[in-house]
């Protein structure tokens, strides 16, 4: 028997919430954009009316204003969005225990074993959609299908308050003509590569020999082939498992560009403190450290390394991250943003191999980290910090742990 999977996508989520709270703007072009003074001045979401002016997500505010001078722009209020996201997922959990979040505004629901309580699968999707509209005043698009990839294609197929059913009978008619870029995992460079081989639609991708795709794309090739043929079969992670963390990281776009290693070190230091503190809060240690950078020309690169032993210590994360940066990037162009993350996480309560020489140093570092965390918890983040970070407060005066709370849940296969 085929599974019944819903993919629920809240329509222009941030903008919808803002329009709910500002009813007078409901019939005007509205966008939510970051703070231009902190150089986060890009469009995060826009409503359909703003979209009709050609405004695109991630373009600069001035570009959007040039297209639509009357555009109403609200700063993001993440606390409010998180509250709505939580309430939406609470409603989802009344229909099934298998809810897998995909970012703040999307989720998969497996209703295979629960839809009979509410009628048909379509009626269940309809009830969910109407309840969210009635109770929270925002709309969503739902894709209903027999696997996660097709359900997601369904929710993207028709926007704004719609339900699209993709079954085995209509899959070829709906999915096959869609551009390959609509498929999950197919980003800009994969699309360009596929287009280079004259593969433009999902149907063409489905009919391509998977051995050829494997040769071109490596192990992702056959996966894409399976997706295009509707053969994806990953489970919707049960609700209770959805908080499992795969990696912990923070990044920051700084107010001024980082033009030397010293400046990058300062920012990495703030970020590493946050990562170390979040690891300890969750009782986790990680072994794989990654550093990602974006230059002032918006070129993106990332580097990673594996430690000998898992860590949750601030100093170790920082030193490893900084060494990684120095080894891989020569600071040819100033950096606009930098991020550090740690993955391959294990429980901190596991047994570990003690270090013959540096054990005492590590214990001192842990005490220092924990003391700093507990002082901050009691008196606020900014009450204590390393004196070295006072050198350039333009770069270091932020709290990544609390100011950035939107972390999309990773794709789990």
């Amino acid at each position, binding site marked *: 028997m085929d599974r019944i999977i819903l993919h629920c996508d809240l329509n222009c989520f941030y903008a919808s919430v803002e329009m*709910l*709270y*500002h*009813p007078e703007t409901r019939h005007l072009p509205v966008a939510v954009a970051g703070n231009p003074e902190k150089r986060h001045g890009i469009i995060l979401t826009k409503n359909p009316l703003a979209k009709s002016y050609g405004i695109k997500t991630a373009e600069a505010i001035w570009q959007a204003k040039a297209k639509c001078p009357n555009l109403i722009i609200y700063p993001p209020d993440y606390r409010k969005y998180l509250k*709505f996201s939580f*309430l939406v997922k609470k409603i989802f959990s009344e229909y099934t225990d298998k809810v897998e979040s995909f970012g703040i505004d999307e989720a998969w629901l497996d209703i295979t074993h629960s839809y009979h309580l509410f009628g048909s699968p379509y009626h269940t999707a309809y009830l969910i959609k109407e309840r969210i*509209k*009635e*109770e*929270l*005043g*925002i709309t969503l698009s739902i894709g209903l299908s027999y696997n996660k990839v097709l359900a997601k294609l369904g929710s993207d197929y028709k926007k704004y308050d719609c339900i699209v059913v993709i079954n085995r009978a209509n899959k070829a008619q709906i999915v096959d003509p869609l551009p390959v870029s609509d498929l999950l995992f197919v980003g800009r460079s994969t699309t360009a590569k596929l287009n280079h081989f004259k593969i433009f639609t999902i149907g063409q991708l489905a009919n391509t020999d998977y051995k050829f795709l494997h040769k071109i794309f490596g192990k992702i090739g056959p996966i894409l082939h399976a997706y295009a043929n509707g053969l994806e079969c990953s489970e919707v992670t049960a609700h209770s498992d959805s908080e499992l963390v795969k990696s912990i990281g923070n990044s920051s776009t700084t107010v001024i560009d980082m033009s030397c290693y010293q400046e990058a070190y300062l920012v990495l230091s703030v970020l590493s403190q946050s990562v170390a503190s979040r690891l300890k809060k969750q009782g986790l240690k990680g072994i794989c450290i990654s550093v990602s950078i974006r230059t002032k020309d918006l070129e993106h690169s990332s580097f990673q390394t594996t430690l000998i032993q898992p860590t949750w210590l601030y100093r170790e994360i920082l030193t490893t991250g900084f060494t990684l940066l120095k080894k891989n990037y020569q600071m040819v162009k100033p950096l606009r943003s930098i991020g550090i993350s740690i993955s391959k996480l294990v429980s901190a309560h596991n047994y570990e191999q003690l270090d013959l020489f540096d054990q005492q140093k590590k214990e001192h570092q842990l005490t220092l980290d924990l003391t700093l965390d507990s002082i901050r918890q009691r008196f606020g983040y900014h009450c204590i910090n390393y004196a070295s970070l006072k050198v350039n407060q333009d770069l270091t005066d932020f709290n990544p742990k609390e100011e950035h709370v939107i972390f999309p849940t990773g794709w789990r296969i």
Partner: protein
Amino acid sequence: MKQWVEVIAKFDSQGNILPLWILFQGKKYQIDKIQFITPAASLKSGGAGLRYTCLIASQQRYLFLEDTKWFIDKI
């Protein structure tokens, strides 16, 4: 504009909150009956919370509890 109001409410032993009086523009209005309580969005005033459908002087009005604050829906 959203019309925030002061409310005198009863907290029962089960943790339910039942509004009894609304204080608005210097006047005190008694809630005669609560007809329904349901989570709902207010598209008129803007916001979402727990909506109390109240009878006040034989007129039906919506009173919302949003987080810890109360507002009445615009007419």
